[in-house]
């Protein structure tokens, strides 16, 4: 792990085959932690501009459109925050898994199932048990979505603990299974029976299952506040609780953690379940706060976005917020960019990949800007083990 402030990573358990980290002054390490992602993003934007120019479009106009679309008006800012809200949850989930040495590529499927379960309970529960007050219905919907995501996350954890099957492949396979299951249910049993409805989606959820909006005429909703609270909760959980310590221990050195008496298998399951829970909550919040229903295809791409955010944040829970805001701004500004400069919205995925590249290969950025090395390189994963 790269988090040097923790006693564990720097002193007790250096990762195998790597020399002990050199002592780095705290202030300089903190500066690097901020400077590297900022420079990575700047470099990615320049490289993206070159790609736009190569295609014969105007990069400045494109970025002007991106800026107008994401930040130039209260409505644009509100939409950026709306985009960033699920990113905070899923980014936290992937970051949490990184602390346990686990790579969760399954946020997309976990989010899709969370949204599906939340939407189903949101519209069907009053019909099953009678009218519900909002204080009961809304928490129930959010909790059910969270649990659905947790269950979907626990499966690859359990498989890894029991059989050693790697979570990278299983989380990806479960994405496809979840999306096919959601597609089946939204086209079949859970489809909105309204004769005017022509697409695969559920009916609208009850009023009591909805998160309140934060401002009139804007789509900004209370999910954002929940996201901020969860960021604090995850930070506290990772750095201030016994479970968080155990998760970081299995991430830093599983053999040492097991030798110290930690239940490795159970911790693998719990870590991925918690990671999935956050993605499931993201799906439930999208349904309860924004769309008021589940619709086929809305979860597409959230898995890789979550990975980009967690990496940009260097797996730090507090870093997830600026990373989520950045990606939210890119996604939100993309439509305006396409309209103004004729650059397809897909460019933001290229930008995302470039940001990922310059964050992961920080040595490139260091060389480019002649930054001194500060601490060991980022290592999140360990091959197939």
């Amino acid at each position: 792990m790269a988090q040097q402030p923790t006693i564990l990573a720097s002193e007790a358990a250096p990762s195998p085959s790597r020399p002990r980290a050199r002592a780095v002054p705290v202030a300089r390490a903190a500066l690097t932690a901020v400077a590297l992602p900022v420079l990575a993003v700047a470099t990615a934007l320049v490289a993206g501009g070159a790609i736009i120019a190569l295609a014969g479009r105007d990069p400045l106009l494109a970025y002007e459109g991106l800026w107008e679309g994401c930040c130039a008006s209260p409505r644009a800012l509100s939409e950026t925050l709306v985009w960033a809200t699920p990113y905070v949850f899923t980014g936290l989930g992937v970051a949490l898994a990184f602390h346990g040495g686990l790579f969760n590529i399954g946020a997309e499927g976990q989010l899709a199932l969370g949204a599906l379960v939340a939407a189903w309970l949101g519209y069907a529960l009053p019909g099953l048990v009678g009218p519900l007050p909002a204080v009961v219905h809304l928490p129930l919907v959010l909790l059910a979505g969270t649990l659905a995501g947790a269950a979907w996350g626990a499966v690859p954890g359990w498989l890894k603990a029991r059989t050693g099957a790697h979570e990278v492949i299983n989380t990806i396979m479960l994405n496809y299974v979840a999306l096919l299951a959601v597609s089946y249910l939204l086209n079949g049993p859970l489809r909105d029976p309204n004769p005017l409805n022509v697409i695969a989606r559920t009916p609208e959820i009850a009023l009591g299952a909805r998160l309140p909006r934060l401002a009139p005429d804007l789509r900004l909703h209370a999910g954002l506040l929940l996201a901020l609270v969860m960021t604090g909760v995850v930070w506290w959980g990772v750095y201030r609780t016994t479970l968080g310590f155990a998760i970081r221990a299995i991430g830093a050195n599983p053999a040492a953690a097991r030798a110290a008496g930690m239940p490795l298998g159970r911790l693998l399951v719990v870590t991925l379940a918690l990671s999935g829970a956050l993605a499931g909550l993201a799906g439930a919040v999208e349904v309860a706060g924004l769309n008021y229903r589940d619709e086929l295809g809305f979860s597409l791409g959230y898995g890789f976005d979550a990975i980009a955010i967690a990496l940009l944040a260097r797996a730090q829970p507090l870093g997830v917020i600026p990373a989520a805001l950045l990606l939210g701004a890119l996604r939100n500004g993309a439509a305006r960019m396409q309209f103004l400069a004729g650059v397809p919205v897909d460019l933001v995925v290229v930008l995302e990949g470039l940001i990922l590249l310059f964050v992961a290969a920080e040595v490139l950025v260091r060389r480019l800007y002649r930054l001194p090395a500060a601490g060991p390189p980022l290592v999140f994963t360990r091959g197939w083990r």
Partner: protein
Amino acid sequence: MTPRRLWLMLVAVALIVAAAVALGREQMAAPAIVASMLRTTLQVATPLTLGALAGVYCERAGVVNIGIEGMMLLAAFGGFVAALAAHAALGDAAVGQSLAVGVLAAVLCGGLAGAFLALLCVTYRVDQIISGTVLNVLAIGLTGYLSRQLFFQTGMPHAPGVLPTLRLPGLADLPLVGAVFEQQPIALAALALVVLTHGVLFHTVWGLRTRAVGEHPRAADTAGIDVARVRWVNVIVGGLVAGLAGAYFTLESVPSFEPLMTNGRGFIALAAMIFGGWTPLGAWAASLMFGAAQALQINAQSFGLAVPSQLVGMLPYLLTMLALAGLAGRSRPPAADGQPYDPHEADT
């Protein structure tokens, strides 16, 4: 890879074919179903086989490659665009040549993606799984962006055609199963590459060096092998093979490109490589197994069964998970797989 496991996988293929016969016996005669299943299996297993071989090259040299999906996608798009351009330049009389140019371009695209991965993983020693993810995201982004930028006004065009079906002389004339041996060139090349890779890996000096570098790079280094060079070459070769897999999607299977069209095949190929115990023959048998599951899904639709298509569509993915879980730690990756090698670093 034990011979027993190889046999078990082929038995699994036979069981899946038997399931297809049981499901479709009212619509079609049994021999016709068997022939159709085997032929489809070989077809759809092609990108899996090639992807898994790409993985074998990389990982035997100690570089984890989860970017196979991205390599395939980039190559599928690159080959598609090159075939279109060649067709526009050469005209309708040269459809075959245009397609050949496309295949060549796809293979080169894969090789370039391999060089990119090698630069990150070998030269800069970036976390290998993250590097693969970077490659995957860039591939999704670039192919999506370029396909919309290039074909914004015209809409997505079609390639000049697909590669022709070849009849293997002798085998294709056999009664009942002859149709199995009517295959397109990339499917046949995949079979040849399985044998070739096996030979290179286990019967040449280069293969020995590759395996040494993947198991114990320091020992290999001490013996005078250039670890970085061996890894670079193998990752590029892996990329070339993955590029051929990419060509399958746009030049052999369908004559068109759509964003995200690889649809997780690269990851299933990776699972096939693991299930095949990091060996070419094992990877091929595992690819056939996953291919058979996909063939069952395709054939089941033509039987007009009442099962929803989404549920049948889960089959290959579920089988992949089941197969991986069934290994229960009996499959061992190369010892140095996933670990960057720094010749100047002290052993710990």
